[in-house]
């Protein structure tokens, strides 16, 4: 039993374990310090999901791209564009919510297709390709409208504000009523995406090819895998997820403006890295990325609960965590190399 646990803790699972332990520790600190401010309430925990549903979706997509050894920094812009386009189509063009959502998802996929072709078939560095994508999508957003558009479409708002009460973890409120924690549909979308991509990565030939390509591209080729197509598929899927993430994000913001979700890609990358994904490729896990997102959310909550600490402490705390993980990974990799030699 102990041996089995030790085995599990070895290698890359070890990185994941650290992330999870860190999350739990942070959360316990939060409860210990801000217990009387109701930090311990289940709803606070579910708010982490509500506030970060969009980030979960995009971090999942990003993780997949990072596993292939690539990167996609266009995501923030794609989200901004998605929100803007959704708002514009529904508000200015009077289109139905369903049609608008389908259109933005298609556009996101197309966006991913073009980036994927440039990366996989033209062999241009992913950073440069998606840098162009980032510029392009942000500029397009401004071309749609430079004004902020708020969404008033009823069916969309219904979707956005539908509280779904969970039948568990009820607590008494001040009046003595039993209240159950709730979530929004956005959370359900995020969880479904997480589960699907987890299954795809673990149980499909495509998913394993993603890991193989990131682990050693040359070997993957020699073992008969279609490296180019695998990469293309990843970028296409990521384009779709970015748009879906944009939709989920929009469910929270209910509007579009040019600067929306700027720098969101870095949050996604940071979450993935904190979750144990190596930017050199081949190693990563969407569950880890989920915890990466939750850690970021917890830090934000703690800073909000504290009340006097300013918002920039979030950035600094996340950077410090990032720094810790990157250096830790680097040392970890060196140790592993030494062990192999």
């Amino acid at each position: 039993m102990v041996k089995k646990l030790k085995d599990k803790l070895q290698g890359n699972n070890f990185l994941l374990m650290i992330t999870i332990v860190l999350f739990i520790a942070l959360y316990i600190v939060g409860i210990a310090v801000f217990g009387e401010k109701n930090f311990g309430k289940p709803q606070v925990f579910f708010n982490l999901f509500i506030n970060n549903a969009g980030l979960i979706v995009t971090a999942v997509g990003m993780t997949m791209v990072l596993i292939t050894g690539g990167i996609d920094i266009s995501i923030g812009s794609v989200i901004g564009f998605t929100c803007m386009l959704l708002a514009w189509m529904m508000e200015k063009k009077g289109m139905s919510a369903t049609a608008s959502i389908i259109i933005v998802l298609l556009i996101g996929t197309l966006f991913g297709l073009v980036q994927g072709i440039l990366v996989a078939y033209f062999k241009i560095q992913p950073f440069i390709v998606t840098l162009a994508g980032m510029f392009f999508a942000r500029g397009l957003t401004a071309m749609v409208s430079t004004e902020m558009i708020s969404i008033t479409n009823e069916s969309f708002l219904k979707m956005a504000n539908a509280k779904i009460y969970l039948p568990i973890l009820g607590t008494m409120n001040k009046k003595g009523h039993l209240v159950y924690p709730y979530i929004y549909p956005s959370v359900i979308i995020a969880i479904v995406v997480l589960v699907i991509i987890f299954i795809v990565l673990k149980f499909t030939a495509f998913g394993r090819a993603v890991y193989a390509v990131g682990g050693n591209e040359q070997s993957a080729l020699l073992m008969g895998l279609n490296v180019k197509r695998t990469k293309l598929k990843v970028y296409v899927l990521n384009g779709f997820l970015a748009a879906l993430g944009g939709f989920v994000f929009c469910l929270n913001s209910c509007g579009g403006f040019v600067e929306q979700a700027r720098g969101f890609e870095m949050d996604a990358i940071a979450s993935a890295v904190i979750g144990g994904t190596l930017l050199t490729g081949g190693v990563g896990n969407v569950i880890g990325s989920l915890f990466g997102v939750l850690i970021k959310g917890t830090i934000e909550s703690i800073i909000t609960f504290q009340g006097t600490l300013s918002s920039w402490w979030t950035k600094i705390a996340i950077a410090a965590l990032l720094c810790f993980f990157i250096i830790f990974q680097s040392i970890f990799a060196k140790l592993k190399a030494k062990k192999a030699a």
Partner: protein
Amino acid sequence: MHNMKETMKKVTGYHLFWPLVCLGVVLLFNLIKTPSFFQISINNGVLYGYLIDVLNRSSELIILAVGMTLVVASSGGTDISVGAVSAFAGAICVYALGTGETYRMPYLAGMLLAVLIGTLCGAWNGFLVAKMKIQPMVATLILFTAGRGMAQLVTGGNILYVKVDSFKRLGSFLPHVPLPTPIFVAILVVVITTFVLRKTALGLYIQTVGINAKAGKLVGLNATLIQFLTYAFCGLCAGIAGLIITSRIYSIDANNAGLNIELDAILAVALGGNSLSGGKFSVAGSVIGAITIQALTTSLYAMKVTADQLPVYKAIVVVIIVVLQSPELKRMFNTVKAKRASSKQEGWWHNG
């Protein structure tokens, strides 16, 4: 005929040929679209005009592009933290000088402090990349995230204004000088950098390490130190750029100062004909690249494109450049050429 071909080959082979063509195309475009682009007038003893504006506005980009060029050359990676570091350095400077009627410390000391902070940030990046062997993008992601946070920490989240008039000079005009000061700063940075690269062996060392680090080590170079130095220098450039950005609006907005400028700096390096995978580099190329970007920006503004829409055009330019530079395209092109040549040969065979 043959000579002509040779000359053509020499001209197109010159390393600044394509960057200059790009700049030429942008200027030509303006000549046709907005002839007023080339007018320069004198007002209150200072020069005005689109061209002056292009040079003025491109100054901080030129400075950052110079630093970025060396980072790319030595490590084949990019420093994405320069924008955030500029903001941080600017914030430090404003904080040090204070927002009162007089400076809290001498102006020069404030500037030196900012540049020092920039260099320290660069040194940290350099340590991670050269010593810890972390990918440049990942290593600089840390300061990319933290830089603005630390800047906000310094400014307390407010936009801080400097009230002393002399603070504006760096970003606008020196008394009795008809050209904006940033142009001089940019020239100074370029000239000093070029001088150091020419008068010491550093330029050769950087290229050697960037092209073949293994061979570099065997001929006795300290690849780690050289990479470290380029990152520290890039940080120094970010510090200087931060000062100019701050002085232009005599205030620091930690959230927006130098926003996305790292991307323009990387683009300038690529536009200057430098390979982003490292090795041979040309500072002059990057300077031309930076001016091209600003010229493009200014001319699009002149054509009533809004600042928000600008990135679309930039993106198109980037994609065209990188696709043209892509070795895969060259390979495809060569295969087609080879096929044609072989079919020609076959034709000759049949005729013979």
